[in-house]
């Protein structure tokens, strides 16, 4: 599997650049961008091999429908995407159209590297207004959500049965119920109750904070939760660890590093884990059997529900593109055309285009359909989603991981983990 590296630099070269000068990038900038002909666009996205394949088909359909347009792709996997993108942008080679993510959207938009998408011919009329607002900053649209996902707890019913337990009522269960449930599974089977590769996921913690009427970030871009809330969160983790409801610290670190595909749930040695709804199909393929989608615990325990629909990813455009018209056409095609949606289905979330969403619902593969139904059923119970994350939000996952690992190994207590998180997070988003 070979990916085109959009920067044209290998990681080792980059490393050396970092080491011997940290400055190859501006030099490359001097070499500059060759003035592309209009109609020649570059497009960059991350994803799996499957996504690459169908996206190429969409591009081919678009090129066929638009004479004289040619699109050059550069693809990466998630991990390498952001390093590659910022080097490309820094080198003056901002892709004309790119996949973006909420954690980085503000970072790029506020540095004037993204094009406002409002007046370049994209049809907004069928797009879900809630999704649209997720990509808007100061009244301008810098990213358009491709679709929405919700976080859910995937549960392997076979293991629940093996433990002789009932599937809990996910509409009313609390975090304490969840802890008791996964602990019982661990004690009654040789499997673990939960894989524990998600407690460092800031989106999951955000749900926990929102259930208490707080939030990960405030609209002003500061941290929006009390230290007590986070300490309570970490205490739950250490309690689960002590009760052996989750794997050992080493096993968690190892499976987290190996990717979610290697989590105990995926390998059939764990009963549950939190995933986004567009990952259900992939997980079921790995497990080899059907999984249940449960709501995140605690939705009815506090003043408000915490779950929300997250824009799976955004389409965004480079500010220095020299063919805004074609960029607008391409993004419009990606979001609104039958060809594009028929190929994408729910891989980029349940489509933002409501008409298209209705249209494809009946024909979705089973797992995707259950994901879609889960979202549909959930939607009436939700409150307003969280604001666009502040600049520096891209560093939050690393900071979470940096306190989560020592917490598991007992080098931090829940209190000191919270303390360290707050100080590092504040300096990152300050």
């Amino acid at each position, binding site marked *: 599997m070979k990916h085109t590296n959009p920067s044209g630099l290998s*990681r*080792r070269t*980059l*490393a050396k*650049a*970092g*080491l*011997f*000068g*940290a*400055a*190859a*990038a*501006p*030099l490359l900038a001097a070499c500059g961008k060759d003035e592309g002909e209009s109609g020649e666009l570059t497009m960059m996205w991350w994803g799996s091999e499957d996504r690459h394949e169908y996206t190429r088909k969409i591009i081919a359909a678009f090129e066929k429908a638009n004479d004289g347009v040619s699109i050059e792709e550069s693809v990466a996997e998630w*991990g390498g995407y*952001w*390093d590659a993108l*910022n*080097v490309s*942008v*820094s080198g003056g080679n901002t892709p004309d159209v790119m996949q973006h993510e909420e954690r980085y959207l503000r*970072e*790029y938009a506020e*540095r*004037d*590297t993204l094009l406002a998408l409002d007046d370049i011919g994209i049809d907004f009329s069928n797009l879900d207004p809630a999704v649209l607002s997720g990509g808007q900053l100061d009244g301008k649209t810098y990213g358009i959500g491709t679709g929405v996902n919700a976080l859910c707890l995937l549960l392997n019913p076979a293991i629940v049965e093996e433990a002789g337990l009932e599937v809990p009522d996910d509409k009313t269960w609390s975090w304490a119920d969840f802890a008791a449930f996964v602990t019982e599974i661990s004690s009654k089977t040789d499997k673990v109750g939960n894989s524990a590769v998600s407690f460092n996921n800031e989106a999951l913690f955000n749900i926990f904070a929102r259930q208490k009427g707080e939030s990960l970030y405030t609209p002003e871009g500061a941290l929006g939760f009390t230290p007590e809330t986070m300490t309570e969160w970490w205490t739950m983790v250490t309690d689960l660890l002590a009760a052996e409801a989750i794997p050992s*610290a*080493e*096993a968690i*670190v*190892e499976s987290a*590093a190996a990717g979610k595909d290697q989590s105990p749930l995926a390998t059939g040695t764990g009963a549950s884990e939190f995933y986004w709804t567009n990952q259900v199909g992939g997980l079921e393929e790995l497990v080899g059997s059907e999984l249940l989608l449960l709501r995140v615990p605690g939705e009815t325990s506090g003043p408000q529900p915490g779950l929300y629909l997250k824009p799976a990813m955004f389409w965004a455009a480079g500010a220095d593109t020299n063919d805004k018209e074609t960029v607008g056409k391409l993004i419009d095609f990606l979001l609104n055309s039958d060809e594009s949606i028929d190929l994408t289905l729910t891989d980029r979330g349940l489509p933002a285009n409501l008409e298209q969403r209705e249209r494809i619902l009946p024909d979705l593969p089973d797992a995707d359909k259950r994901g879609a139904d889960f979202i549909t059923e959930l939607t009436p119970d939700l409150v307003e989603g969280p604001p666009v994350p502040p600049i*520096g939000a*891209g*560093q939050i996952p*690393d900071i979470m*991981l*940096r306190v989560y*690992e*020592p917490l598991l*190994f007992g*080098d931090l207590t829940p209190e000191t983990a919270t303390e360290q998180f707050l100080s590092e997070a504040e300096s*990152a988003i300050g």
Partner: protein
Amino acid sequence: MTDNEVAVAPASRRSTGAPPGPTATSDSTRGRRSRKGLRKSASRRQSWAALSFLAPFLVGLLVITVGPMIASLYLSFTDYSLIGDANWIGLDNYERMLDDDRLLASIGVTVRYVFISVPLQLAMALGLAMVLDKGVRGLPIYRSIFYLPSLLGGSVAIAIMWRQIFGTEGLVNQVLALFDIQGQGWISNPDYALDTLILLNVWTFGSPMVIFLAGLRQIPAMYYEAARVDGAGPARRFFSVTIPLLTPIIFFNLVLQIINAFQAFTQAFIVSGGKGGPADSTLFYTLYLYDRGFTAFDMGYASALAWLLLLIIGLFTALNFLMSKFWVFYGD
């Protein structure tokens, strides 16, 4: 013209270049000047030829090394974010280093790595060089085999393999299981993760070994014979003949390997999944620098870090040279 004449020519020229004697006429000075002119244009031609042969290297040096270094020095005084403009902020980046706990942690990790892995690696290299120097049959083959890790050790593939070998279900634990020992997740446990990387570096002992081997060959056999006649045993011969005569080579290897070890990047990047984890236990200096520059949008700070690294390496190298006066024996 023979080689000899070429070699002699400059010397004779220098002697005739002495102040002119009383017999020197204006003619002869003119003649000398024109000859000088000729020589000048010839040497100019030659220096052009030299330059054009050097060009590929010089262009590389200027464009890939010196240019970026100058740019980096400038950027270290700015708030360059990689995707925005660079604004001059004076010494702020350097001041920030003073209370950067992760920087301190990364220096700690790197220094531990350098000071444990380099001595072990050199001891290993010297030991094997001694064995091979005894005149093993098929020496070139052994030499190549032992040298191989040096070529491969920095590669991504080996780092990935290392990850597998030291994983919870990896080769190491499978072997330990044969002896009823319950192994660890060597790489996923912060107490051992750095040790696996140290081991990886020690394993790449091949290149200092080859240099040691060459050094050992240079020691005249008569010293050993003389020592033997005086009744010195193998240990005595090793410490009184081999080591002293090898000190310049040891010094050379030490300087080189310390510089290399400070710049270690690939192995830690791959083994730790690019984050220096678990729990920052493998956060090498270079990894932290990369993290700041390429993922935290803090390239100005990363540039300053690069210069600090240069200073640190320079300091250690200078110390090394200073201390060499006390233990390196050049045999004259």
